[in-house]
């Protein structure tokens, strides 16, 4: 019987791998360009929101915060879908192409440590990407004197981080399947867009009386756009939704580990 110490992930090794991944992302000019573009769009949306007299004069602060977090053109959702593939497309595809993955695999690290390390590094960078959103909101609070409910801001960040973790794991999985970065990122983007767009369409045609409860549950769980807009961005968290994000992330990471492992056996 394996003892607990051997099962537990060695934190130092995992953190080293995560730091390496994070460092490679931080020093990449592309990452900063993404950040700049993202916040330019977000700033334009916020100004658009403030230019609306119904919002700026006697508008509801909670509504403004929600509008700010989602984005006037729902850019948050689309950025949330586009950014993780860009962050993860290199993870395995680039290493496979250059051959550095074989080198990494021969190092005294386990496969799941490599996968987890890469995912963690990307996730931390993703979190850094969202930090200015909260800082800007705090700045707006000080400057415009808004009475902001930070519970709502916290749950919004939780929602974005949960979705990010899922999409990063999915991105790692697609990256592990191919050595073509573009293909990996495109597949991952398609998956993300599908996740945002397909379940609402299916939910609109689902029939509570007719369709199987299993299908309805899956549809409801996978309807991430609805979950974000009706729950997370409004200060409301359903543990059922969190379970979906965590379990799906674990599923993709598990599948990635299996794919990485299968390279050794070939």
């Amino acid at each position, binding site marked *: 019987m394996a003892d607990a110490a051997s099962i537990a992930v060695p934190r130092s090794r995992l953190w080293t791998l995560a730091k390496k991944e994070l460092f490679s992302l931080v*020093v990449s000019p592309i990452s900063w360009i993404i950040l700049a573009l993202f916040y330019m769009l977000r700033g334009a949306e*916020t100004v658009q929101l403030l230019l609306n007299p119904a919002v700026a004069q006697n508008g509801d602060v909670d509504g403004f915060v929600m509008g700010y977090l989602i984005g006037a053109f729902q850019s948050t959702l689309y950025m949330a879908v586009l950014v993780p593939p860009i962050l993860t497309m290199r993870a395995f595809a680039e290493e496979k192409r250059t051959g550095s993955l074989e080198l990494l695999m021969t190092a005294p690290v386990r496969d799941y440590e490599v996968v987890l390390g890469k995912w963690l590094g990307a996730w931390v960078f993703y979190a850094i990407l969202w930090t200015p959103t909260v800082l800007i909101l705090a700045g707006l609070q000080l400057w415009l004197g808004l009475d902001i409910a930070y519970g709502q801001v916290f749950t919004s960040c939780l929602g974005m981080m949960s979705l990010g973790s899922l999409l990063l794991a999915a991105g790692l999985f697609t990256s592990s399947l191919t050595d073509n970065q573009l293909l990996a990122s495109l597949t991952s983007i398609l998956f993300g867009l599908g996740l945002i767009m397909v379940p609402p369409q299916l939910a609109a045609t689902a029939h509570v009386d007719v369709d199987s409860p299993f299908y309805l549950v899956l549809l409801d769980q996978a309807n991430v756009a609805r979950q974000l807009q009706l729950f997370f961005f409004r200060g409301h968290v359903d543990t059922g939704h969190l379970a*979906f994000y965590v379990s799906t992330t674990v599923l993709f990471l598990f599948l990635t580990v299996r794919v990485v492992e299968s390279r050794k056996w070939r």
Partner: protein
Amino acid sequence: MPEQTNPEQTNAGRSRVEGKSFGRARKLGIAVTVVATAAVAIAVWGVLQFVLTRAKLRTTIDWSRGAKFTISEETKALIDQLRTREDKLEIHTFLRSHLEFARPQNPPGVQRVAPIQEACVRATYDLLRRLDYLGGDQVTVKIHDIYRDIRASGNRANELGLSDLNVVTVKIGLRKRSLDLLRQMADIELPPVERNRPGQLPNPVLRAYKGEEAIASALGSLLAEEELTAYWVTSFDTAPFHGPTGNAGDGVAPLARAMRDSGFRNKKLDLRRDANVPQDCRLLILAGPEAPLSPRAVGAIHAYVKNGGRVLMTTGVTSAGAGSSQISFKRLLQPYGMSLGDKWVFNALRDPQNPTDFRFGDLRCSRIVVRSGMNRSHPVTARLLQRGEPVELERARSISLADPMPEGTQADILLSTHSKSWLVDVPPFNARPSLAVPRKADQRTFHVGACVEVEPATADGKKGRFCVVAGLAFRKGTALGNLAGSLFQANRLFGVYLVNWLVRDKKFVPVATGERHEAKMNVAPTQVGRAKLWLVWLVPGLFLSCSFLMLFWRRRA
């Protein structure tokens, strides 16, 4: 010459072939293992979704301002009760869009309600979503789109007996309650007109959204009702379920059927044989008794009402006239301060072209049409008035109330004739009543429907209710063959509303909703200009300069 073979070479070739096939088998094995584990993982993931979303395992965390998404403990207790009893709750919504209120062609008063409608609709959907999650399999929420699925939602609204839209209907089995969004689920304040601005109407203010309280109260009432059993007294020559010809000509079966559709269970009761009204009786119906009621039966009914029982009595004048049945009715109604006249009530016919013009001397004057004489404050008649549905009675007799009323009773007149009504002697069997034009002095208003509430015997008991409709109202045919139109068809809604009101006690579930707290914005245009500079240019510019910095640093490194 036979070619000599090197045994070593042969073995190497064999092992290469074996290695190739072994490699292929190994690859196949690995592929199968990978696919199988992936399939198992996906299956486990699917099952996990199903398990983790069960109502017992999931919970919600509310960090919104004022915890506005939190369901109260009172409502949770009701949902638990629902689960324990394995009852299924259905909630149907037929809500109007605020845009419909905001149309420019609407009166300004309606347009001003649009923001309140929008806020209430949003709050209702939030509430129903939470109830749906909380209730799990026990609660089903169906949102009917009255703009897109016009036919389907219209049919559903008809099935639920809705007279108007913008309502939420709460339903358990056949029992249901409908709640008007703006009247029952919201506390709207209309500020008074300011003195210095007499022509300008102030905007209504949504003080509190009370949807949870309204739905919880409706749910509590439905759960308290359990099974509604109505007992129809079959003795004392009460009206048969089916007419004498067996074709339901003048029977009361249509009312029984309508009651069944409303969730009632109909049973027969012979009060000559049974000494008491059964314990499970929620409504006792005395449909047109013609024979005298026995003192024992009268005593049983009195005891039943005293203990919170509900009675509906319909009685029209009969050719047999007054006599001993009239005496027994007097004994029955005396404790409730009511007495019945023994003459036939006629009313003049209104001219449809000119409602102030009346016609006399017509047999159709015997059909009492109550339109303006309905009680505006009573829930039953107020709803009929709202829908513009009159009540029609035949062989009507007058009801008089005692002055003062007996102690512990409170009377409500439900139906009164118009002022051009008079009394006619009941003719012998098969003879026509007198159609002589009455003297002006004899024309007046008569009460033809009343309800008395009786204080309970104990402090925790229910109020008893005794309702009299003094005329034939719920028969399928007409009492007088030459009058057109079925009585029951004309009074269907009246009958359904009345029996439902009689048995249903409103249960109020107090839910702390509190005042609406909304943090408001007040941003000056100059502040927007500065926000634009910071958010659109400076912050992104900072990140862009970081990218150049990284590029520079990498090139140097």
